[in-house]
């Protein structure tokens, strides 16, 4: 039973991922669509951060926000991204002590 769920999930996840490789091989897009696609990574980052970050601790949305601000601060002073991640984890850990 579970194996069929896994196979079904694998198929519906793989098809949308792989389809663009075939589509884009045939097509030549106008410049503005190129620009749209180039801006997608920044848009995706935005959409992935907020409001999801408020559910990092589902019972306490402000903890996610504060840890996120700590991450912004750390990233702003150009520390390595690993330090940004560890800093945010420590911030949440301290706030939930």
């Amino acid at each position, binding site marked *: *039973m*579970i*194996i069929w*769920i*896994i196979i*079904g*999930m*694998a198929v*519906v*996840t*793989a098809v*949308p*991922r*792989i*389809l*663009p*490789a075939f589509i*884009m*091989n045939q097509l030549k*897009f106008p410049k*503005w669509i*190129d*620009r*749209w*696609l*180039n*801006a*997608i*990574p*920044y*848009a*995706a*980052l*935005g*959409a*992935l*951060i*907020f*409001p*999801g*970050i408020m559910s*990092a*601790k589902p019972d306490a949305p402000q903890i*996610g926000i504060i*840890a*996120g601000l700590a*991450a*912004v601060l750390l*990233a702003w002073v*150009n520390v390595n*991204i*690993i330090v*940004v*991640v560890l*800093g*945010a*984890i420590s911030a*949440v*850990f301290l706030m*939930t002590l």
Partner: protein
Amino acid sequence: MRVQAVRKLEPSNRLHMVRRGMMAGLPIMLGYLPIAITYGVLASQSGMNLLELTLMSMLVFAGAAQFLAVSMVAASTGAVEIIIATFVLNFRHFVMSLSFVNRLKQIALKAKLPLTLGLTDETFTVSSLYRKEAKEDYGAWFYASLMITAYSSWVVGSFLGGILGDVMPQRLSESMGIALYAMFIGLLVPAIKKHYRISFVAITAMLVNFIGQQWGLNQGWAIVLGTLIGGLSGVFILKDEEEEEV
């Protein structure tokens, strides 16, 4: 003359690209491990065996969908509902894949196909911020190595979570839920520091996503909508060099 000599010492060969890809994938590995372990623990608690939960990570490789599936399995939801929910949640990878493939024009189709299978929120955004590699020799090796680094940590972490059960103190594993969000922030902030206009694109996407979810749109579609509309704002807001350089 001297510059040329220095360049010759650092050839752009396969091994070099593989190493750079691993370094780029390292923060993802760090973000994935605790979350994959948490997934493994929850999946075994929901009644999946070690083979099943590891196989799901190997074949699906999509964190949010796997957590959703585990909670649905625990609630004995039907298979069709789980598969439909997975499709809705993961459809955002279609948009990401379009953007990803559009930058890999120099890379052959036979290399692009397996690379798109390795796309997640994290591997997509990290590889998008390494643009020039797509034009370098052996660029496919760079992206493949980045994705394999992320993929193997996801699979190994799931397996560990499955065998170790609840080893991690709960408070620590809960604190790690912030890891991937912190990574996204760590990727976005340097881009914004370089070109402030990028913040408009990101904030538009955030607002559309937020409003969409307030209106009752499912999380997966709200992210798709936020990504599309946020990206569209970039067509008017970003200048060409802002898209190319970062």
